[in-house]
Structure formats: structure tokens, C-alpha cells
């Protein structure tokens, strides 16, 4: 029996894996110690648990445990990496390169840096969502200290050419930071092979708890440092003060371990379901996939259904299917997605898109149900859409003088 509602918004957050919860529970009650308490068994137990989790987290991304700084999540990691590098390397330069489809946590941090006197280049993306490597290299100046490009995009799932990016950065002696929030745990991410200097990711996007994440900071070739953004007890090698969230860290560690062990089989199964969903929805006329389909996360599909409006479309089934018409971070606004607009979509197509985020607990039955519900709603709303009628009659909608308001 299909249990409703169906959850297909795994890019916003994932349900916690029960095995993660089980690992965490003792650290709320029995083993409640402060990992920084050095003088009694409660502290020792907590420290041991944190050390173990640090290894689990490091292993997922091919890092050394000493290179893992625990944070409250990816937003904090983005802030700490970008502001921390900007402040630490101020004597070397003040220029940062990023791209327009980054998460708001990166873009707004960069805006902050511009206000405090830094310089930021925002690279455009091509129609498929990938950056142009030539443009990246051309943007590097003698004062450039950091390239900040996400591993994979949260709205369309497009995977950037991370190894090419890091090679260019290295060639020019510039540090490379990547927000891997959507990629880590879903596809192989390896800080050594990928040549990454700093990387952030978050527990709740990979079946772990909310409120915990990590920033990877390279210790060798080169040794990277960031200026702390919070003052306090000097935890996490002085880069992030604050009592460690021991249960969160334990859960995050367990989540990383499960992802590492099950990634290949999960990705294959989920990828097949995604392809099935996509193939069936593309049977509808005037439906388009947004973003590069080859270089893409296996669990994401972003599809525009022309001549129906995304919010109206969601209303047709959002009691039974949890989906998003954009990122959760911007869905409070009525503006169309800035990511889709950066891919060159007109406002009309950007208004007509749905983001499907599949996950570890998505079933084929749920996908079949979703295809049916979404297709029916698209057809129903098109019958109601004046634009669809015009399209059918061959009216050139670009020639209509729309009353812009």
C-alpha cells in the first residue's frame, strides 16, 4: 500500500536514517559529557565518540580526520570558509571568484565581503548550468585568493567540473573551496583526487541530523588556515569555538559511514527511478529538463512544464506529494528561481518548473504515483491555461503586448 504523502524534496532535507538515530540516542542521556572535559570519564567518552565520528566523516571525502572542523551546517561552513580565507589571506589579495548559481549562503557571504572592501567576480553559467573554464581562468588576477564553486547544484543537480577547476586554481596558486552539500554522500567526492582545499557539507542532506555539518580544511600541500568567525574556547583547532554537538556529530559520522558503504547501490537504484520519472514526464508535450543531463546528480530532476505555472501546479497534488518549485531557501518569495534564470530560461519557463529530489527511501510505487498525479495536473491546468490555447492556435506570444506589472 502506498503511504501518503510521498516525499520528493530530498534536496531540501532528507529523513534521518533509523540507524543514525539509534547511534545518536545514547549521547543525549547516558553519554552526555562535554567532549572538552578532559578530567573525567564523561568527557572522555564524548571525546572518543567525536574522534570516531571525525574519522567516519573524513573517510567519506578522503580526508584526514584532523582536517575536519565540525560546524552547525553548510551555511556556517560557507561563511567560515569564505570569510575565514578572506581575512586570513588579506595580505595576499582581496579577490574571490564564484558563480551566479551558488547557494545564497555563498552569494550573500560574497556580497558581505564586497561591502567590506573585497572584490568578487560572479561567473555566469552556460545553458547547461556548467561554468566555462576559460572564463574562470581569465578571471584570475594577481590578487585572487579563492575560487568558490559548488560541487553540484541544489536546484538542477548539475555537477561542476571540479577537477578541472581545482587544476586551474592550483596552477595560479589560488585556493579552491567547494560547497559539496548536495554531492557528498551521493556521488564519490575525494578531496585528494579532486584537488580541493576547503569543502563544506551538512548532515541533514544525507540522512543525518539537522544542525551539524563539517568544513574540510586542507593541512598539507598547501596548509590552509581560516580566521575563526566566532570567538570562544578555541575548539576545532581554533577555527570554530563552541561546545561540540556530540549527539549530532555521532549521527553525522554514522550517516557518512552509511553513505560511504551504500552510495554505489543507492545511486544506481535511485538513478533508475529518476530516469523512469523523467522519461514518463517527458511524454507530456512541451516538457523540458533543465540543466546538463550527463553531468548531474543521480537523484535530481528539474523539469519545466510550459504554459502551466509552478505554484498552481504544486497545488494540484501537494497534499500528497512533497515537491518544490525552487529551492526551499527562496520559495518564500514569488520570484522565479535565479538559478533557472542563470541557465537562460525565460521568466515564463522558470515559473513553470518543478524540482524532484529522490532519496534513499523513495520507492518505485511512489514514482509511478507521482508521474500519474503530475501528468494529470499538468493536463488539467493546460485546459485552463490561456497560454496553452494560444500555443495550440499557433499564436506568437512574443508579439503580444503583455501588461507587465
Amino acid at each position, binding site marked *: 500500500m502506498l503511504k501518503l504523502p510521498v516525499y520528493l524534496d530530498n534536496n531540501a532535507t532528507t529523513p534521518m536514517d533509523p540507524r543514525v538515530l539509534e547511534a545518536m540516542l545514547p549521547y543525549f542521556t547516558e553519554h552526555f559529557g562535554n567532549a572538552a572535559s578532559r578530567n573525567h570519564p564523561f568527557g572522555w567518552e564524548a571525546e572518543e565518540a567525536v574522534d570516531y565520528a571525525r574519522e567516519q566523516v573524513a573517510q567519506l571525502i578522503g580526508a584526514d580526520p584532523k582536517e575536519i572542523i565540525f560546524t552547525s551546517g553548510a551555511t556556517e561552513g560557507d561563511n567560515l570558509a569564505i570569510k575565514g580565507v578572506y581575512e586570513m589571506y588579506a595580505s595576499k589579495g582581496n579577490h574571490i571568484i564564484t558563480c551566479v548559481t551558488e547557494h545564497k549562503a555563498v552569494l550573500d557571504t560574497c556580497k558581505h565581503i564586497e561591502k567590506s572592501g573585497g572584490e568578487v567576480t560572479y561567473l555566469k553559467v552556460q545553458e547547461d548550468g556548467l561554468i566555462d573554464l576559460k572564463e574562470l581562468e581569465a578571471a584570475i588576477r594577481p590578487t585572487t585568493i579563492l575560487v568558490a564553486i559548488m560541487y553540484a547544484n541544489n536546484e538542477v543537480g548539475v555537477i561542476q567540473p571540479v577537477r578541472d577547476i581545482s587544476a586551474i586554481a592550483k596552477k595560479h596558486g589560488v585556493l579552491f573551496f567547494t560547497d559539496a552539500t548536495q554531492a557528498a554522500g551521493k556521488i564519490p567526492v575525494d578531496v585528494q583526487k579532486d584537488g580541493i582545499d576547503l569543502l563544506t557539507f551538512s548532515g541533514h542532506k544525507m540522512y543525518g541530523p539537522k544542525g551539524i555539518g563539517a568544513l574540510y580544511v586542507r593541512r598539507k600541500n598547501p596548509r590552509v588556515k581560516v580566521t575563526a568567525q566566532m570567538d570562544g574556547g578555541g575548539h576545532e583547532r581554533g577555527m570554530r569555538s563552541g561546545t561540540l554537538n556530540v549527539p549530532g556529530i555521532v549521527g553525522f559520522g554514522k550517516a557518512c559511514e552509511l553513505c560511504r558503504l551504500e552510495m554505489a547501490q543507492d545511486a544506481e537504484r535511485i538513478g533508475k527511478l529518476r530516469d523512469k520519472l523523467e522519461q514518463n514526464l517527458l511524454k507530456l508535450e512541451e516538457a523540458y529538463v533543465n540543466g546538463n543531463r550527463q553531468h548531474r546528480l543521480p537523484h535530481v530532476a528539474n523539469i519545466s512544464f510550459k504554459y*502551466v*505555472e509552478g505554484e498552481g501546479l504544486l*497545488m494540484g497534488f501537494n497534499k500528497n506529494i512533497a515537491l518544490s518549485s525552487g529551492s526551499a531557501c527562496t520559495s518564500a518569495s*514569488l520570484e522565479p528561481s535565479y538559478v533557472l534564470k542563470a541557465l537562460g530560461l525565460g521568466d515564463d519557463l522558470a*515559473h513553470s518548473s518543478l524540482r524532484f529530489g529522490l532519496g534513499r527511501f523513495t520507492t518505485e510505487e511512489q514514482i509511478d504515483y507521482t508521474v500519474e498525479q503530475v501528468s494529470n495536473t499538468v493536463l488539467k491546468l493546460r485546459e485552463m491555461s*490561456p497560454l496553452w490555447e494560444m500555443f495550440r492556435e499557433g499564436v506568437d*506570444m512574443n508579439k503580444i503586448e503583455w501588461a507587465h*506589472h
Partner: protein
Amino acid sequence: MAYSDKVIDHYSNPKNVGTLDKSKKNVGTGLVGAPECGDVMRLQIEVDDATGMITDAKFKTFGCGSAIASSSLATEWLKGKSVDEAVAIDNMDIVEELNLPPVKIHCSVLAEDAIKAAINDYRKKNGLEELVFNEKAVH
């Protein structure tokens, strides 16, 4: 965002979806909004020339649930009204009837604009002077 029951009802069972023959002299058509803004409404009225009464009204809307509900409600209200009475329909009546939240008030404004555009189209076709309306400031 939670929608009111009335919005959900109009969205699920919209009244008067369709198209009237715009080549007929007694049919007035209003097309308002823009695809880029995420909503386009087309509202049509058919008028009995002898009595000046609106005998039929149809809509098609591209937009969110509130936009669909606003236009569906508008067609219900239009039927059986005289053209002069229809001019008096105010967007705030729609807001009240559908319990629209502040971020959706523009949907009701669009519906009012569509009514007025349809009436003016009808007047123009029938050699009457177009009415001048003050712009609503809500957009």
C-alpha cells in the same frame, strides 16, 4: 502556504472554464498579466444587447491557485449582472470572499483588471466610449 477552503474548492472545481467566440460583437475579452510575472488571466463576457445583462462568462488562467480561484469567482459573480453593475466589482470583495493572504492580493487585482478590460472590449466593439479606470496601487 495554506490555502483557504474556498480557494481550494475553486481550484479543484473551477467554474466557467472555457472560451467564448471573440468574433461575436456581444462578446468582450480581457487579457491581463504577463507570462514573465507568473500569471495571465483571460476573462470573457457575453452580453445580451437588448437588456445589457451578462448572460455568460468564461475564463482561462495561467497562474497560482489564488489566481485561478479569483478568476473562477469573478465569472460566477459576472453572470446575471448588468454591465454597469459588473464595473463595480472591487478586488477587495474577492480578497474577502476567498480569504486571500496579503501576498496574493495581486491575484484579485488581476481579476478586477480582467473584468474591466473585458467590459471595455465589449464597449469598444459596440461603439461606446471606453471607461477610464484608476490604476490600483497594489501590484
